[in-house]
Structure formats: C-alpha cells, structure tokens
C-alpha cells in the first residue's frame, strides 16, 4: 500500500535520511524503530509531504505522491499522529476532532470517539493545549480515527500515556487493523510494538538497515534494546 524508495532528506547541511526504502502492505501494522534522532519522525513527515528538502519517491497504492501537496495526500486517506501531538490551542477538543474532513470509508463518529475516550468527553470544551499530556495524545489518535484514514502514520502514540491507556491504544490499533486500516508506527516501546505489529523496520543513521518479524524481535530483544538505547 505504502512504498518508499530511496528517500533522502536533510535539514540544511545535515542529512537525516539516506536513501531509506520500505514497504507496508494493505492491512499491515508495521513499526519503525530506531534510536533517538535516527530520523523516524522525519520519515513520517516526508510521507505526509511536510518536509521541503527531500528526494526519492513515496507512493500510495501505486500512485506517486511526490508532487502532491500535503492536503491532497491527506485526502487520499493518510492520517498523521504527530510526535508533538499537534493539539490546537485555539480550538476546543470537539473542534480539534471535527476539524479534519473525512477522508476514508469508515470514519468514527464523535459519539464513538467519546465512548472510547471518556476523558476527552469531560474536557470537550477546553482548548486542546490545556489538556494533560496524555489527553493530548488521545486526542491526536482520536482525530485521525475520526477522519477515517485508511493509513495511519503514528509517531510514538504511547509516549506519556499511563499503562492502562497504553493497553487501550494497543486495542485501538488492533481494532483499526481488523477494519482493514494500515498502520506505520514509530515506537520506542518494543513490548508494545510486538503486541500490535506484524513486522518491524530498524532505522539507523537515516537508512533502513533491517526488517524483522515479531519472533525475530522477541528473540533478539536484548540486543535490540541495547542497540536502540545508546
């Protein structure tokens, strides 16, 4: 479904991605792991078309996205959960949720969102940046579900969430997957990653250096953790 070929990107002089390539099949949940600063967030931004300085191709369902502006990409069914959570200070929680247009066949209703995240319901009329860190994270996830995106790009969605909520997010992603949603997940938490994902890519120094499946990740856990940590 999503295909990235030889993607390179830089910030000014510093090259962050170096000809990274990967592929995500429809209905798959794939994680991207890598240590801090490896370029994971940058890769997601490239897919969304938000990084000005990039080379290589990104295609969705065989369609080349390279020249499409970000809003057109979103309309094709891409949903992005940014690493800073992307809450709007000037919009209430409800407005944050209703802002994006629907882009896919199965958008969540507002009721369903509030059912899944009662915390958001209680805070529905506050400016979104007034939410606690974790609440903002829920909001970011809820928002792309409400868009009905076919493909989610989630940047560390469990960061700062309580253990209970981390489980919930796992459930949500699994449920989304059951409904045929494709997910590219950036994650530090390997437990969580192996719990929801089918496959994993390891990103190092801007290159995709390895592709692994769940069992491989589990068996090499110690090694990987050590690697990711440094």
């Amino acid at each position: 479904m999503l295909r990235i070929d030889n993607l390179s990107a830089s910030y000014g002089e510093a090259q962050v991605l170096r000809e990274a390539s990967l592929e995500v099949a429809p209905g798959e949940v794939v994680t991207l792991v890598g240590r801090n600063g490896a370029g994971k967030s940058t890769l997601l931004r490239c897919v969304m078309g938000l990084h000005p300085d990039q080379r290589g191709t990104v295609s969705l369902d065989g369609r080349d996205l390279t020249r499409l502006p970000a809003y057109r990409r979103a309309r094709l069914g891409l949903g992005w959960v940014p690493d800073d959570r992307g809450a709007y200070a000037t919009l209430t929680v409800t407005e944050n949720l209703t802002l994006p247009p629907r882009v896919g066949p199965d958008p969540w209703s507002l009721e369903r969102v509030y059912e899944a995240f009662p915390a958001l319901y209680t805070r529905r009329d506050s400016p979104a940046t007034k939410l606690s860190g974790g609440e903002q994270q829920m909001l970011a996830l809820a928002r792309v579900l409400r868009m009905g995106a076919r493909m989610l790009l989630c940047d560390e969605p469990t960061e700062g969430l309580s253990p209970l909520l981390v489980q919930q997010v796992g459930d949500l992603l699994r449920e989304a997957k059951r409904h045929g949603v494709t997910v590219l997940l950036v994650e530090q938490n390997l437990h969580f990653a192996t719990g929801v994902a089918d496959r994993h890519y390891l990103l190092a120094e801007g290159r995709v250096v390895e592709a692994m499946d769940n069992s491989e990740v589990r068996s090499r856990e110690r090694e990987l953790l050590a690697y990711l940590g440094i």
Partner: protein
Amino acid sequence: MTGFLQHTFDGLVNGAFYALLALGLAVIFGMLRVVNFAHGAFYMLGAMGAYVLLTEFGVPFWWALVIMPVLLGALGMALERAFVHRLAQLDPLYNFLLTFGLTLILQDLVKSRYGVQSIPYATPGELGGSVDLGLFDFPTYRVFVLVFAVAICVGVWWLLTHSRVGMVVRAATERPELTRAFGINVGRWVTPVFGFGIALAGLAGVLAAPMRAVNPLMGADLIIVVFAVVVIGGLGSIFGSVAAGFGIGLVQAWGVVYLADWPILSQTLVFIVMAAVLMWRPAGLFGREEAPA
C-alpha cells in the same frame, strides 16, 4: 437628564466606529494572528473610495456601502497573497511591521492624488433629517450608523461562532502545516478571512464618510485608540473588542462633558482605562488568561 442621554447616545454612535474597527482587527487577529496596523488606512480608503465613487462615477452612498467593502476586501486578499502570507510562519511582529509599512504607503498614495484637505461627502438624502427619540431628536444618519453597526457586529459574531469557517481558519493560522496534513487547503481559507476583516474596515470608512472629515490621515490616530480599545477588551475576543468599542465611546463622550475642567484627563481617558485594565486583568476584560509562563 436629557443632556446626559443625548451625550450617551452620541457616545454610542462614536463607539460604533471603534467597535466596527475593533471587530475587523479581532477577526483578522483571531484567525491569522496578525495585528493589522493598516486597519486605519483601510478605513480611510473606504471613506475616500466612497468619495471617489460619488464624484467620479456618480455612485451614491448606498452602492458605495456595498462596493467599497467588496473592493477593499479584494485588495486585502491580494495583499494577503502577496505579503502577509509570506510572513505567516514568522513572529507576528513581522506582520505588524509589514502593515505599518503598508500604512505609510497607502496614506501617501492617497495624499499624492487627493491632497490632504478634508473632502466633503454629503449625507445621503434619505437619512438627512433627524429623528425624534422621545426626549430629544438626533440626526437620522447617526441613528442609522448605530443600528447598522450593531447589526453587523452581531452578524459577524454569529457567523464566527456558528460556522465552520471560524474553526478552520483558527486552526490554519495556528498550525498551517499540521492543518494541511489533515487535508485542508489552508490558503483557500485564510485569504478570504483577511479580506473580510479589511472589508469591515472599509465598511466603517464608508459609514464615516458622511459624518467625519474625509482625508488621507483620518485613520492614522484613530487606529491607535482602537488598539487601546482591543487591549482593553482582550484582543483575541470578538465579543470583548466590540463591547470595549462601545464602552470607550461612552467613556469618552462622558469624559469630554463631565471632565471638561481636567482636559488632560478627558483626553487620555482611554489610556487611563487601559492602564487600569492591564493592572487588573492583563489579558483584557474578556481576554483569556495566559497559560503559566
């Protein structure tokens, strides 16, 4: 008593201009985070435009009231595309400076063409007389201005709170990149809103033409008072800006009459009120509190 009521009414009429201008400022600010220094200049263009339409094309007041806001709105949109837009990602101060520069240009352009003499613009015939308001009579035109301005303020407020427009533009202004990533074509929304705010200034200008001195500098000092008004009301708040606009109109009218013996006070009343508000509520009467900082 009648005197008091008359002055009160008069204050409201003057407040109507503050309110309309503050409203336009607030719309633009609320949506684009741009404090439009050129707002006074657009107000002036509205009035000058009405004059030019009348003298050179024979277009009467009523048509000017429609045409000028549309023209100025279009001009505003062009300026947004050409300049404001480019600075959107930078500190809002840059747009403040940009519009300050535009003010100098617009004023001088009009000056070079029409001089600085005040130009007369007749009150439209239909509104020429005065109406009996029970205890006193008042020029019909001023009554019209008050009613019209209130209607506009209420209408705009309704539009912004009950429609999707307000929401989208606020989002697009705050985080354009993110908003684009949600499938919204930001440029399509922001530009018309800027134009709309400018159109409001132009509308105020046309309304002012029959009762104020029409000249290239008519907006210059007015805009500073309007800034004080929005600081008092809370710049982010549409309601606050409008309310403070009418309120300051009243305070000034009363001040001139009842503080006549202390001219320094009556002249600086707006600023004194502003200082008091800043001390007591730094975010303005209806502004939201700032986050912990």
